């Protein structure tokens, strides 16, 4: 034990709380970035995992990513507005996390399966799913109600971390089906992506998912959007070191990517997914990003964070940098930007209209689908309910 700076150390120790940690340290050498906040392209970069990352997009693909980013932000803003107007019960905004979601979402191949939390509206959009799909949940007219297998996109999961085990089990099933590691063809082999937040990493379930995946060598990518907060709690309440380093302790690689950089996020995710489908086992990706808005529409972030922090992240906006890049490289012109905005508005207006038209469920449907094979008990309760409701009819009740 070094006896050098004893005085200083003793002072440190006396505070029962932890000494300064560095989990939120923003831009270290360990961060994979291919597009700077200023819109400068970095050609290729070697990640902390020793892998060289790059992307090779055509101009139209670059424009496509920009389009995705703008549309998902616009749809998100519309949903926030719909909540304010009482049309949704609550909304969990993705504002600030567009690049993490579009980058990873576009990296998925059609055969891949995604397990979202409650915030992956951008991933959902990139899967080609109608953005109205999850709004029933937030409006309170259903609880998801979509077919996860048909959409290759599981229902939203609200219990923090639970879905990471479902994802792992599904990935084990892929391996059991012999759908992994058969060739180097990216169309061959399936992979799973499990989304979760920085807060979720503290749940036992998430750590068990790491263990299961590692032990069974499951074709899965753990995609952690570290948006720096779990509701009000900053990342320091969950970890003392950068989250991506958690993975190594479980026996698989972890990478930290600039989650506000759609290109780097795409590159890292695609590599990890292809590795998984080709039999290389799991990877954990920490997408370093920021929740620009409230946790949900019921939250008030001014109670726990300052405006200067938010402004610092504003300068790293995931969309502005792509726009700057496209403009500087003359990949897109003003007309394109206008057209994208118009498309985004149109999609938002369509969403709004359709949300307003979403009917309330018939009360009696609350008895439906408790079981595949309905029990006499449920049948009886439904019947009594119908009878009871009928007793009010004509009574003006």
């Amino acid at each position: 034990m070094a006896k050098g700076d004893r005085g200083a150390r003793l002072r440190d120790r006396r505070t029962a709380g932890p000494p300064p940690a560095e989990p939120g340290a923003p831009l270290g050498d360990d961060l994979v970035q291919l597009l700077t906040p200023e819109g400068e392209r970095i050609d290729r970069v070697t990640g902390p995992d020793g892998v060289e990352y790059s992307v090779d997009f055509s101009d139209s693909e670059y424009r496509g990513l920009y389009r995705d980013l703008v549309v998902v932000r616009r749809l998100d803003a519309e949903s926030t507005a719909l909540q304010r107007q009482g049309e949704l019960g609550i909304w969990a905004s993705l504002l600030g996390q567009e690049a993490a979601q579009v980058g990873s979402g576009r990296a998925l191949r059609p055969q891949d399966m995604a397990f979202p939390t409650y915030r992956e509206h951008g991933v959902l959009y990139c899967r080609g799913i109608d953005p109205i799909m999850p709004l029933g949940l937030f409006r309170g007219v259903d609880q998801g109600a979509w077919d996860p297998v048909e959409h290759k996109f599981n229902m939203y999961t609200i219990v923090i971390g639970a879905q990471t085990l479902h994802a792992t089990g599904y990935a084990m099933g892929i391996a059991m089906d012999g759908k992994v590691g058969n060739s180097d063809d990216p169309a061959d082999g399936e992979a799973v992506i499990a989304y979760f937040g920085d807060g979720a990493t503290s749940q036992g379930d998430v750590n068990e998912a790491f263990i299961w995946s590692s032990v069974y060598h499951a074709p899965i990518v753990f995609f952690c959007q570290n948006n720096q907060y779990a509701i009000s709690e900053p990342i320091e309440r969950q970890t003392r070191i950068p989250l991506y380093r958690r993975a190594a302790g479980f026996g698989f690689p972890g990478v930290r990517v600039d989650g506000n950089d759609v290109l780097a996020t795409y590159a890292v995710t695609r590599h990890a997914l292809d590795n998984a489908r080709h039999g290389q086992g799991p990877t954990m990706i920490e997408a370093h990003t920021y929740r620009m808005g409230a946790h949900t529409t019921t939250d008030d972030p001014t109670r726990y964070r300052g405006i200067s922090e938010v402004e610092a992240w504003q300068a790293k906006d995931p969309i502005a940098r792509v726009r700057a890049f496209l403009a500087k490289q003359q990949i897109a012109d003003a007309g394109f930007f206008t057209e994208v905005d118009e498309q985004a508005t149109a999609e938002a207006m369509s969403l709004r209209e359709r949300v307003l038209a979403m009917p309330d469920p018939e009360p009696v449907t609350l008895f439906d689908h408790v079981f595949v094979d309905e029990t006499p008990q449920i049948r009886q309760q439904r019947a009594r309910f119908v009878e009871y409701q009928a007793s009010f009819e004509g009574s003006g009740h």
Partner: protein
Amino acid sequence: MAAKTMTMVKALNAGLRRALEADAKVVIMGEDVGKLGGVFRVTDGLQKDFGENRVLDTPLAESGIVGTAIGLAIRGYRPVCEIQFDGFVYPAYDQIVSQVAKMHYRSQGKLRLPIVIRIPFGGGIGAVEHHSESPEAYFAHTAGLKVVACADPAEAYVMVQQAIACDDPVIFFEPKRRYQEKGEVDLDASLDGARPLFASRVLRQGTDATVLAYGPMVRTALEAAAAAAEDGRSLEIIDLRTLSPLDLGPAYESVKRTGRCVVVHEAPGTIGLGAELAARITEECFYSLEAPVLRVTGYDTPYPTARVEEEFLPDLDRVLDGVDRTFGW
């Protein structure tokens, strides 16, 4: 006397504050309870005033919250854990039923675990799934736990302090749909003079039928009684307050007079509190009952989506319907 009109949230906050002041060993822990003051603001301002060693923002994991609370209790602390919503208590279930509930027994009394686990429970707030559960039966069926539910601000203020002062583990249910309802609270009320924590109370006297409720349904039951009175029917309303142990003396006395009893809760009926109440009351009042004890409860379905939750939850009409049915038996 400092009687003030305040919400249940503010009353709980005041109660927690008094507990923190009264005993330096009391610590509050949970997700977002510190800087934010809890998602419902029940712990608002407490970290600021008592420091980060008394009010802990914990990592996001309920088993961790309860598990470390056990260790703190072994060390001599009196932890008050907040579970953010009813539906998120299950990751801590093992620590609660296998450890919290059993360690005093296993140690033959040598270890005490004065832990309070606060759980905002029940529906009616238009929330998404997992935010409107009524898991009280899971705990009240568990030997070694004490379980209570408060129903109004004055009660919340006193009961939360009593729960913290209790040397046994207490699961403390707070009816979140009543959080913003106001009532008179005597902030100077001494705990000594207060009604014991593990006692029920007769809230309204009546002669025709007895209605048992707790937590969020107490107000519903009172409303039903008012409506029934207009129809010339007199309901006696009992607020259970303690779900484990049950304190059914007043209920037995009442049912023996009225001959009819309706039990109300939000949780699904099957093997809910109501089943136990019906079974015990039938045993105790067998020859007085004019009709079986009837249950007005949530249905045996998962908690439904917000837009139909009002149909799932017992309301004034369903309570009256239950009473009617006991008369029509």
